[in-house]
Each structure stands twice: as structure tokens, then as C-alpha cells.
């Protein structure tokens, strides 16, 4: 519990040319992430944090604040404009994973990270069966023993409460809630030390949401896996996380223990956010 899994320093993501004055006219104080001199979007700036083993970090903020951009940069879906990210299970944290060659990034995605998107079909191949999706993930993680793959897939799907009867169904024919369970199962298939979850219950029926959240909570307890949980919903943050960062216009305005952020918020924006939830 006392070792970092990932540390991020000065993560930045800019859409556009940038001009050298972008930083001085954007952010929470200016209530915009668009530079008025050059029109670039400063989606993230000065984002730094550390995640320790077994910790669950929440990222909360209004839509467009940059939450998804953070996890997408770490999962290499997006290319960060600058910053240093060290993933300790990779090369003992000596490398900046943001600047590694593609082949190394692919290795990290396949072996050391899992990602669950809001839209299940971003993480799944819809024209594969549930079992096929899990098998694919196992194969990319170099788990080759064919004899084992089917039993292992079944076990993984069982953990996220996907009945055996769904194993051979095409993912695109499943309900949203069922797809989300398969996606979670797939993200966990390679036993990643770090799991990224981006708005995973947004858009699901309320009863399905509750079940999926309980499931994640149970998996946390069983596997002691480190997670980053992105959500605009403080209820989700409260249930799943033990630390929280509050994001506004691409910057961190406050971070702390989740119960502290909810019960003793100190930043004006966090206070507004918490009070509008109650």
C-alpha cells in the first residue's frame, strides 16, 4: 500500500498551435480553457498526482473539464502535449511512458493497464462474442494456453455476473448493462496493476448502475487493484473512491481524501459542486 503505481507530473494537453500566453488567460480563474490570443484549447495544464497501490482516485468535474482527457492520455488514446508519467510496474518507473515508442505503449496497454469506457462498444468488438472478446484480451497479454482460455474466460465473465449463456452471444446484441459487464471483465482479464474507468455507469438504468457499482466495489476488495475513476457524479465518487481530484477548465482546483472533499471542501468551486449535489 505504500508504493506508488503511477506518478504524473505537469500533464498538459493542448488542441491547437499554442502561443506562450495560453497559460495566462485560461483555467478556473478565467472560466475558460480557450486561449483568447491564439484560440487553442488548453484541455489540461499542470496536472500532477500520484496513485499508490490499492488506492482508488476519483476525478470529478463538470463536463468538458478534462477528466476523460487525463485517462485517455494515460492509456495513449490521446497524445499528451507534455508531461511526465511514470508507471512503476513498467521498467521500475524509470521511463516517461508518454514518450515511449508505439510498440512499448502497446505492451503497456496489453499487460499493465485496463480501461473501461462509458460506451461499451469502444472497449469491445461488437461483432465478437463475449467469450471471444475476453479470449482476444488474454491472447494479447500473451496468455496462450488454448485449453485454458475458455474456462478462464468463463471465470472472468462470472466475476462480473455475466451468465454462461451470454458467452457465445455477439456483444452488439447484448443490453447496455450486460455489455458494460463484459467490458469490465475484459479490462480485468490481464490482471492489470492499474484500471481506468471513465463514466462507466453514465447512461445505464438506475438499477443496473447500482449493480455495476457494487460489482466494482467488490472487485476492489478482492483484488486490491489501483483504480482511477472518472465521473461527473459525486455519488459514484463517494461510493468507489478514497481520494478525489476536482477538475475545472483543465486544472486541478482541489484534491484530498474523498470524505474530506465531500464534507470539508475548501475551494469555492468544490463547495458549489458539493452543495449542488445535496
Amino acid at each position, binding site marked *: *500500500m505504500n508504493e506508488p503505481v503511477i506518478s504524473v507530473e505537469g500533464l498538459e494537453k493542448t488542441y491547437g498551435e499554442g502561443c506562450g500566453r495560453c497559460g495566462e488567460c485560461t483555467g478556473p480563474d478565467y472560466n475558460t480553457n480557450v486561449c483568447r490570443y491564439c484560440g487553442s484549447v488548453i484541455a489540461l495544464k499542470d496536472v500532477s498526482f500520484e496513485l499508490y497501490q490499492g488506492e482508488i482516485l476519483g476525478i470529478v468535474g463538470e463536463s468538458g473539464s478534462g477528466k476523460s482527457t487525463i485517462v485517455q492520455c494515460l492509456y495513449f488514446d490521446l497524445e499528451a502535449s507534455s508531461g511526465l508519467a511514470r508507471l512503476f510496474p513498467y521498467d521500475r518507473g524509470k521511463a516517461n511512458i508518454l514518450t515511449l515508442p508505439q510498440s512499448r505503449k502497446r505492451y503497456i496497454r496489453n499487460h499493465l493497464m485496463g480501461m473501461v469506457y462509458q460506451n461499451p462498444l469502444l472497449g469491445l468488438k461488437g461483432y465478437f462474442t463475449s467469450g471471444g472478446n475476453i479470449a482476444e484480451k488474454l491472447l494479447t497479454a500473451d496468455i496462450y494456453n488454448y485449453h485454458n482460455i475458455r474456462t478462464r474466460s468463463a471465470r472472468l465473465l462470472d466475476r462480473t455476473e455475466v451468465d454462461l449463456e451470454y458467452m457465445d452471444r455477439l456483444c452488439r446484441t447484448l443490453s447496455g448493462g450486460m455489455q458494460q459487464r463484459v467490458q469490465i471483465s475484459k479490462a480485468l482479464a490481464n490482471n492489470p496493476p492499474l484500471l481506468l474507468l471513465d463514466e462507466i455507469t453514465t447512461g445505464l438504468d438506475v438499477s443496473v448502475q447500482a*449493480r455495476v457499482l*457494487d460489482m466494482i466495489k467488490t472487485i476492489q*476488495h*478482492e483484488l*486490491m487493484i489501483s483504480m482511477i475513476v472518472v465521473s461527473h457524479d459525486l455519488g459514484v465518487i463517494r461510493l468507489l473512491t478514497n481520494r478525489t481530484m476536482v477538475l475545472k477548465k483543465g486544472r486541478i482546483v482541489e484534491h484530498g*481524501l474523498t470524505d474530506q472533499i465531500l*464534507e470539508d471542501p475548501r475551494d*469555492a468551486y468544490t*463547495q458549489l459542486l458539493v452543495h449542488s449535489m445535496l
Partner: protein
Amino acid sequence: MNVLQVQSLSKNFVMHIRNDMSLCGFADVSFSLDEGEFLGISGPSGIGKSSLLKCVYRTYIPSGGTIMYTRKDGTAVDLASADEHEILALRFSEIAFVTQFFHVIPRVPAFDILMGELTMRGVDPEEAKDIISENLTRLAIPRALWQMFPSTFSGGEKQRLNILNAVIRSPRLLLLDEPTASLDPETRNEVVALLQTLKKKGTSMIGVFHDHETMKRLADKEYSFAQEMEAVR
């Protein structure tokens, strides 16, 4: 052996969304707590008792003062200023809080919740089963409920499960905020007995109780907010 040394602790809240209005939680609290000692906190409602516990657990960030905690390994740390990772590690291994509200996973069977608490701390599952069964029985939670979701429990049953959830892992420092409020006299006695056992094993505790009678049965000493206020006057 000293476990906790609280010095000139204060807490006030600044409400930015109300024109930076400042609210006083409490001011200038000092006390110390030894291993296996029980400190009762008393005073009228709204005087800052819960806020004090929350500062020690760091749900609130103190505005001033220090909270020196001596870890199991003998090293000291100021809980008022320790970083988030440090606090989480201590909450995992040494410090527990029984709040007035119920904080477990709502839709997982009661038995499994307690099981998770123990096994994730390295207790052998077979041994954990025995410990849990013994404690659930002791707090008179009917066997029929063990495999039920706590969301279906009565207020008193929830509260007992809440207490067990913290007590079962024998923390070194236990914070209790009105743990017996919704219990009938009989189960209240069981909870008191359970806490006394824990105390004998060396757990230090700080507790707020709504009835003075229960507190007197547990407390070795008392911090009274009311007296402090009178002393100030």
C-alpha cells in the same frame, strides 16, 4: 504508552459560497490518550464533538494545532498535516471510525462484507469465518440475516453491523460517534461489552455518547466541551 497527543486543535469552516462566512467548529482542544485508554467526549449538541472526531480521522482538515499519533512501530506522525497516502495507509491498518451513518456496500451480504474486511488484511478465510460468526452471534444479529443485504436491515441491526465492521479488525485507535444511539438496552450492553474486550486488548478509543450512563461505563477520562466553555467564561 502514549498513542495520541492533541495540542491546541481548532477547526473553522470558511463558506466561499456564502460571502466567505466563517463558522467556528471548535477551538483550542488539547488532550492525550494512552494505549488501551478510553476518552469520552461530552457537551451539548452542536458544540463540536463530531467535528473533533472528524479532524482526528482527517475527514476535516484542522485549522490549527497538531494531532501527534504514535504508530504501532513506534514512529510518530502529525495527523493534522500528514499526506493523503499516509492517512489512507493508517485508516487501512490502524485507525477506524464508527460514524453515525452507515458506510458499507449496500448490496453485498453482511457476512461477505465482514469477510472482505478481514481477508483484505491478510486474515485466513477459515479463521475469518469463525471470528465473524462469533461476533455476529455476540451482537445478536440473527443467523437468518447473515446472508442478507444490509440495506434490508433495521436501524439497530445496521448500527451493530457498522460497529462490527470497524471493531472486527482490532484497530489500534477507534473513534466512535454515538455508536449506541439506536440500540435497545440489551444490545447496548453487548456493544459496551464488546468495546471493553477491545479495550483490554489495547485499543485506544475516543467516543461521543448521547447518554452519559453508557459513557461512564467505558471512559477512563472525559473531555467536556461544556466545562471548557464555562472555564472560558
